[in-house]
């Protein structure tokens, strides 16, 4: 007998719903990025490195937010790569209302902008604060926590490339254990970045019981856009943490940016989930499980872990794998959701 296809949960298309667009899908089912009318929040001519994950992640998130708010959006940017590569005086790449103050105060400035909109009785104008992991998890952390704690009507987006890349690849509190940076060299007995410290800001944000916390990745555009859109449908303090690989800081090929983000996702090393009011409500199941070493190996910052004479190598790799395994357990990433 022929196989019935009517009872398929996902109507099948040549590339399913995994590609950016699909000529066979209705336009409204395609991503914002598939549309020639997308905002292009960051336009051409910016000075990000070749294959920059952050330039991509920021455009993905802001274009989705622009569509969700009908263009009524103000962005406040922390200091960092994203600010530097888009706005060398007197040029700007931004095609959204955009404001930069200091490295550590983006969340506080955004709170002020949101308050101003309230005073001006412009409820339709929404506010996004954004920064890299340095400006978020380290330098701007106090202001961020305050914004959460006051439940200010701001979506804060952190583009996490796991270090201070713009200033020469220094360690941040988001740098993973074992990674080599300028300040955590892998020389002799030094193992690269230490294990067991650092901050998991999505979990810290959840501890503030704010309405919405989510993680996303440049490797899953549909998921990222859905989360940015959902975040804009909610009032109050929201937090979106996007993984954005950095070819410069990670020592990876420019064309591998999305592949690495995908391997981080599929190994369980970077879990994608959503939480509302401090409770995890959903996670993205792993589609094709890979061991963490597949993610680590293409990156020069982990190259020392694979040297046979490195006394820390195998232990560090085991710890990184254990982190991924723990994520799989904690966020239930290994459930079978049928063929996708």
């Amino acid at each position, binding site marked *: 007998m022929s196989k019935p296809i009517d009872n398929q949960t996902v109507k099948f298309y040549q590339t399913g719903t995994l590609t950016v667009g*699909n000529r066979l899908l209705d336009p409204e089912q395609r991503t914002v990025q598939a549309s020639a009318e997308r905002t292009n929040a960051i336009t051409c*001519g910016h000075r*990000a490195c070749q294959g920059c994950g952050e330039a991509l992640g920021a455009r993905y998130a802001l274009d989705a937010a622009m569509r969700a708010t009908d263009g009524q959006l103000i962005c406040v940017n922390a200091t960092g790569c994203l600010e530097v590569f888009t706005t060398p005086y007197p040029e700007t790449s931004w095609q959204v209302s955009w404001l930069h103050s200091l490295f550590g105060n983006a969340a506080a400035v955004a709170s002020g902008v949101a308050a101003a909109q309230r005073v001006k009785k412009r409820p339709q104008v929404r506010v996004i604060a954004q920064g890299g992991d340095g400006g978020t998890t380290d330098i701007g952390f106090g202001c961020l926590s305050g914004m959460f704690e006051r439940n200010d009507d701001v979506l804060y987006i952190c583009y996490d490339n796991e270090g201070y890349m713009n200033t020469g690849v220094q360690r941040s509190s988001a740098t993973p254990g074992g990674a080599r940076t300028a300040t955590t060299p892998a020389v002799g007995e030094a193992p690269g970045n230490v294990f067991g410290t650092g901050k998991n800001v999505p979990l810290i944000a959840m501890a503030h019981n704010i309405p919405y916390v989510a993680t996303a990745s440049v490797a899953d555009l549909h998921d990222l856009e859905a989360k940015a859109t959902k975040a804009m449908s909610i009032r109050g303090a929201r937090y979106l943490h996007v993984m954005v690989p950095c070819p410069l800081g990670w020592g990876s090929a420019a064309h591998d940016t999305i592949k690495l983000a995908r391997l981080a996702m599929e190994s369980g090393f970077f879990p994608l989930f959503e939480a509302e009011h401090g409770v995890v409500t959903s996670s993205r199941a792993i589609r094709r499980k890979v061991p963490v070493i597949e993610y680590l190996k293409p990156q020069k910052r982990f190259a020392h872990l694979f040297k046979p004479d490195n006394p820390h190598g195998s232990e560090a790799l085991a710890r990184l794998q254990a982190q991924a395994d723990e994520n799989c357990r904690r966020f239930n990433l290994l459930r079978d959701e049928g063929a996708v």
Partner: protein
Amino acid sequence: MSHQHPFAITLDVGTSLANRTGTWRTTKPVYGDHLPPCNAQCPAGENIQGWLFHAESGDYRAAWDVLMRDNPLPAVMGRACYHTCEGACNRGKLDEAVSIHAVERFLGDLAIREGWRVAADAPPSGKKVLVVGAGPSGLSAAYHLARLGHAVTLADAGPKAGGMMRFGIPKYRLPRDVLDAEIQRIVDLGVELKLNAKIDDIPAAMKDGGYDACFAAIGAHLAKKVDIPAVSAGRILDAVSVLRSMESGEEPPKLGRRVVVYGGGNTAIDVARTAKRLGAEEALIVYRRTREMMPAHDFEVEEALEEGVAVHWLRTIKRLDDGEMVVEKMALDEKGWPQPTGEVETIGADTLILALGQDVDVSVVTQIPGVTVNKDHTVAVGPDLMTGYPGLFCGGDMVPSERTVTVAVGHGKKAARCIDAYLKGESYAAPPKAAVAVHDRLNTWYYSDAPASVQPTLDLLRRQSSFDEVKGGLDESNALFEARRCLSCGNCFECDNCFGVCPDNAVIKLGPGNRFKFNYDFCKGCGLCAAECPCGAIDMVPEDL
């Protein structure tokens, strides 16, 4: 400056569009159309990916039109072709190959149902071409020549057109209404079909009829023989005659209760399955070598076994007595060749059918000046399929080649193009082929998991007792599903990935059907578009520095 600037600001705000980051680039992305492995494999030169592309969007007419550019017999081909394309299909490495033949058959059947027609592409050329032999090769040549604007006469010695498609392939694999419909469509294109018209002197026929060129494709109909001592010679038949007699409207041949077929090719399988359907209680194939060495296609052997056909591998027939047959067991030597063991056994047999291959009846060409016949009784032709006699081209089973319907159809197309060039005083040069889109070029992450659709199969009892078609067709939803399993290897299908993943907005979307182009003013050459292109349609090419 005419207006006041804020404190410490001296320049107007400008856009970063002034910063042409394209100058950073050392390699640049380039869109290309690579040759999908299915297309590269197809002996008829079909643009399979090209017609599947249209079928995916449900535009079956456009799909059929693309298909018909290369092959005038889609409904036949979807049934009788051994679809080597599917063996080459990159999707086979992912889950299962796209069931290309099933979609082709769906399109072919739909075209017959809807009465779709094609018209000539060129105005009448005033040239006349004689095609000898209305088998797949001759029909294909006639069709393509007609579309190229030439006046074609298609002559066949038999009572009906179709050649081996009618007199070799059993009905249960290729229903005759399907064959008739596709032949009629070629005739409707203006091809003059002459049946029962055996041509013994081709140069004379060309001269008398005023033909400017001739394509001969008379096939290979002479059954190969082997000397087997027998009590009664009448008990030994040949497979070609048995299959032919099924079509000639005579009484079907009396084969007896126990039929033995000698041979290991597709014809052996066909005749054994036919015997079963004619009521033979036992249909047994005897083959000299092993199952792995059988030239017959595996799925046909499988289907025959399902229907109760038995196979004795590693046996040769020594002698046929009254009601029984003596066979000798063979064993493979260290080189893998079968060698006699001296050990014999006896098998009950009423009829022996020889299916040992066929030869070309070259008598029609041996007298033609310039024509060379090869040692294996095939006709020598050049790369343009022309013989040593100017204007005489040959193809199909009568030239050295793999003898399948699809190869024959390909010969017909190639001959038509070469004849067209010959008639213009030119020589045909095939356009250069793009590099094959191998599996390594693909980014298969983006393809959804989807196993192949299964064609319905006739139940076994009816397969053993009737000549009804064994394999059913896909319905529309299944055919659409199957078409959409195509990975579009090497050819852009407008998934928007390059447009989406460029960190520099350096990909310009040109709208439906027009694909994309790169904005090299800003492309930094990172290669993300090429890496994330599912189908491998983008190459990174070094810049001249």
